[in-house]
């Protein structure tokens, strides 16, 4: 009984220290004590974030080989490369919580961890690359900038680096759409069609409405999250409306209008049935995305095995050489 009580007291002290650190806006670091639920909640969110970067390469990579100018091709390749890099940062940050990249990838491949539902929509035209940059990256930034102040240090620091690159991508996407919008009538139509298809899925990126969001309240109490889903979604709509006007494109929502009283734009109802359907795995590309990811992993297995075998050989060679050297010196 004494042991249990001592443990209990230690936990209470830890908890009090943790709560005080969060309240004081201090950063929690990997070696600090943290509640189990805080740890598992972070693993879930950060892994999902990492997976989204990796799966998110697919809809854009789909257009690398067809990019219509060499300048655009270079921009797109650089962007997809950045996404792989963001995935790497985020997996590393998640590993500080006591998991491994292999374990996380395994959970992605077996469907036990999710990725952002937006990447289950197809890129059907070149303009989709611009719409993803403007709207999808725009929504991601709106979500992620507050994460730069997240209570967990490694996550917050990863987000600072990632947000810088994301803003750059977002501007490039906007500029791509602007070129199309101001181009030939066919290009303008292509841009409008892409915005029509990506607008609502982008609004869904902020997650379910506040009253249906399972993790929100706890995440906000822990200062993992700083704003609610609906707050961020509203912020995003308010940012996009003038940008769409500047682009010379319309947003596909007849109910969208400025509300003087609220000082915000009112907008139409989101199709939550579609959101849940995509989230449950039944969106347009869920099957395709995960199949490609698994295939890349499975077809690459022999390469990873070769690298591991070679590393083992060369390190044992080196150990032998070191030993020989020690003997020779002795």
């Amino acid at each position: 009984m004494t042991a249990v009580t001592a443990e209990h007291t230690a936990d209470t002290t830890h908890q009090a220290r943790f709560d005080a650190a969060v309240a004081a806006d201090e950063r929690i670091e990997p070696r600090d004590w943290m509640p189990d639920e805080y740890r598992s909640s972070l693993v879930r969110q950060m892994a999902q974030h990492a997976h989204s970067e990796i799966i998110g390469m697919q809809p854009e990579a789909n257009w690398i080989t067809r990019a219509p100018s060499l300048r655009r091709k270079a921009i797109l390749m650089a962007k997809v490369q950045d996404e792989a890099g963001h995935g790497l940062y985020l997996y590393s940050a998640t590993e500080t919580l006591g998991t491994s990249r292999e374990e996380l990838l395994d959970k992605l491949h077996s469907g036990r961890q999710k990725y952002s539902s937006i990447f289950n929509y197809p890129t059907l035209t070149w303009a989709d690359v611009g719409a993803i940059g403007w709207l999808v990256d725009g929504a991601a930034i709106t979500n992620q900038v507050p994460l730069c102040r997240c209570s967990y240090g490694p996550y917050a620091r990863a987000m600072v680096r990632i947000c810088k690159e994301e803003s750059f991508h977002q501007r490039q996407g906007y500029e791509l759409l602007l070129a199309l919008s101001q181009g030939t009538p066919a290009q303008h139509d292509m841009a409008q069609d892409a915005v029509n298809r990506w607008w609502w899925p982008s609004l869904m990126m902020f997650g379910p409405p506040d009253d249906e969001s399972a993790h929100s309240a706890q995440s906000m109490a822990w200062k993992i999250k700083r704003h609610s889903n609906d707050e961020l979604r509203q912020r995003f709509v308010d940012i996009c409306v003038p940008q769409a006007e500047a682009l010379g494109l319309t947003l596909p929502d007849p109910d969208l209008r400025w509300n003087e009283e609220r000082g915000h734009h009112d907008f139409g109802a989101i199709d939550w049935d579609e959101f849940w359907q995509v989230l449950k795995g039944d969106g347009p590309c869920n099957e395709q995305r995960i199949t490609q990811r698994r295939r890349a992993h499975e077809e690459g297995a022999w390469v990873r095995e070769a690298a591991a075998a070679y590393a083992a050989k060369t390190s044992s060679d080196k150990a032998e050489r070191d030993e020989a050297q020690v003997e020779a010196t002795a």
Partner: protein
Amino acid sequence: MSAALALGDDALVLSHRLGEWAGHAPVLEEDVALANIALDLLGQARTLLSLVGDEDELAYLREERAFRNLQLVEQPNGDFAHTIARQLYFSTFQRLLFGQLAAGGGEFAGLAAKAVKEVAYHQDHAEQWTLRLGDGTEESHRRMQRACDALWRFTGEMFQPVEGLDVDWEALREGWLESVTAVLERATLTVPDTATTGAWSAGAGRQGLHTEPFGRMLAEMQHLHRSHPGASW
């Protein structure tokens, strides 16, 4: 034939092939590395093609017979070993070529001096993977050997003199063979003893004679640009 066109097409076509790997690599680090190399090559292609004319017109509006790239760089990616063998052969060639051009003080000296830094990284990447695959597992050894054998016949073309390039081609060939032999031997691989100049492949790409997969690659690369004549992007 313009030398800038030949070198520019090499870089353009290989960059495109590497771009096909995006999202398909065996590990995330390789998604980053292959895209990185592809971007370097695309940068070289844009500089070189711009010396000849409008980069997009040249990339998107020429037909297969007007391209001057080596047949080696247009070969399909195959498995990771094929991609690495192609990289090993080509980056070793490019490093030695740019080394000579940078030292020569001719038209391409400035460009080559910049590119040789990138190419040194590409060569290192290819060599490291050749060692890992050649001297890794039985399966990776078998695959790497098969890839080296399969692409060997396209290597002779690299040493066909290109008009306008002040290069000692024989020294280039010897240096290349020495460098590649050393890496393959360290990787426990056998240097192929078959001809490096198939009747069709010797100098053919430089004359606009390509292999079948190339036309399909161009169809994909050019279709959007060609579908909107005169549009800007």
